[in-house]
């Protein structure tokens, strides 16, 4: 397997065209991680490197068990890598917590808080004045179609609404980089495509730096500026793909021939990877 990722500095196969001169909002360099216990060793990440430019939407696609969640735990500072480092705005922040806005795979809304109180939690943790935080939360909830549910408890909401609330909670976090861990994997197909469109709209309006894990190729292509394809365990970057479609994007691009070609290409690459590992 050849290392095809753009090296941390310049050059490589796919140099980020315009933004190469800027400092990446998030950059991980040469991450390695092996989990050991008395019986076994699991090599999870192998020399993984990636970059998220400011205002860029980046996706990571990979087979299940390719260490995607471990990657987020390392970026979030919960797990220490064996080697390698995490940079934000050019500073080494390896092992530092509280620097990313995180949206977990399950909504993980606190059941004892109303939806509104859940959404404003990150501002509350930062010590923002309650009234200001509340006004912000209200504004975003209205934008997300959650108006009227401010005082509801999360368990009364549908799965899609819970995910939207969880997304708003990440969006309201003051941290620049958002990390979304398979945000829609728990939803049914219909709700999922609704949520993708919704996220596309919101993101194109706010332009935060986003790193999203998914195993849904179409979702990645629809939303992202660039896509990293991750190998099976131990996870390493197989390829970085720039998504050429202009913004603002409409759902119609799903039917665009070049979209379909790209989708087929990626899925072939992933199938090949899985077969190679299977032998």
């Amino acid at each position, binding site marked *: 397997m050849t290392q095809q990722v753009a090296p941390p500095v310049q050059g490589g196969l796919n140099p980020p065209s315009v933004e190469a001169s800027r400092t990446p909002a998030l950059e991980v360099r040469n991450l390695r991680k092996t989990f050991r216990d008395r019986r076994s060793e699991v090599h999870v990440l192998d020399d993984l490197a990636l970059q998220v430019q400011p205002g860029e939407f980046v996706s990571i696609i990979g087979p299940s068990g390719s260490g995607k969640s471990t990657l987020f735990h390392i970026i979030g500072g919960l797990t220490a890598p064996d080697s390698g480092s995490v940079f934000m705005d050019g500073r080494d922040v390896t092992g530092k917590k509280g620097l990313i806005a*995180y949206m977990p795979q399950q909504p993980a809304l606190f*059941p004892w808080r109303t939806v509104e109180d859940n959404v404003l939690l990150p501002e509350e*943790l930062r010590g923002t004045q309650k009234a200001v935080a509340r006004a912000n939360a209200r504004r975003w909830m209205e934008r997300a179609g959650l108006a009227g549910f401010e005082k509801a408890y999360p368990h009364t909401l549908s799965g899609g609404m819970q995910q939207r609330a969880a997304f708003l909670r990440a969006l309201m976090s003051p941290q620049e980089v958002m990390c979304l861990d398979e945000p829609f994997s728990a939803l049914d197909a219909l709700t999922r495509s609704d949520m993708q469109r919704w996220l596309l709209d919101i993101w194109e309006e706010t332009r935060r730096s986003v790193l999203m894990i998914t195993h849904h190729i179409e979702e990645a292509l629809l939303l992202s500026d660039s896509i990293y394809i991750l190998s099976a365990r131990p996870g390493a970057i197989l390829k970085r793909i720039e998504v050429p479609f202009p913004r603002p994007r409409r759902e119609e691009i799903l039917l665009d021939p070049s979209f379909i070609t790209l989708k087929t290409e990626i899925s072939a690459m992933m199938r090949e990877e899985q077969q190679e590992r299977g032998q």
Partner: protein
Amino acid sequence: MRSWWSSVWPPVVAVLFFLLVWQAAVSIFDIEKFILPAPTAIGSEAVTGAAGLFQHTLATLQLTLIGFIIGTTIGLVISLALHMVPFLKTALYPLLILSQNVPTIALAPLLMIWFGFGMLPKVIVITLVCFFPVAIAALDGLARTDRTMMNYMQMAGATSWQIFTKLELPHALPSIFSGIRIAATYSVMGAVIGEWIGSDRGIGYYMMLQKSGYRTDRVFVAILVIVLLSLLMVLLITLLEKRLIRWNRKS
């Protein structure tokens, strides 16, 4: 309303049937009153003796509440200390479990010797029976904090105090309350036992007094009062729980 009624009537009928059998058996087999009084005899004694019982009931209720509050507080403090200092937990948790093999009731006479016949030894007895269920339930609840929510809080950069007050404590609250509810019923039992061993008032004292006079009907009335006190305590806790936990308790 209908579903409420359909779940209420079967036990009510069962109790009425049981009382009926009891009443019939006592008159058919001509059982002595001092061995087993009829339900009607107990009922009339409860009515006529209510005034004399009132003071005793009040004394027991007061003792129960004091002991319960102290015991629950100590239970919570212990669980918080063990939760916050992992070393304390590994060191003391097994001892805590072991300590429950000492029958608290057996300690009561010892406590009387050490602390006399006042309020203190009885409060200690109640505290000893109360703190354990609270401490264990709270520790258990605190240890079971949802991993995803915990990851979220840590990634968001929450301080450990924020994690405790905004996540661990509310998450453990239902569990803590189930411990407190057990402690509430135990506290009435602890109070009565304390009064048996040495007291000059309270339901336990009243029971001992009537026992020596073979007034079995009055002993039954005392038991009835104890049951009602227990129910009252549980009711209080349930109301408090309803006020504090408004979200879906099933999840």
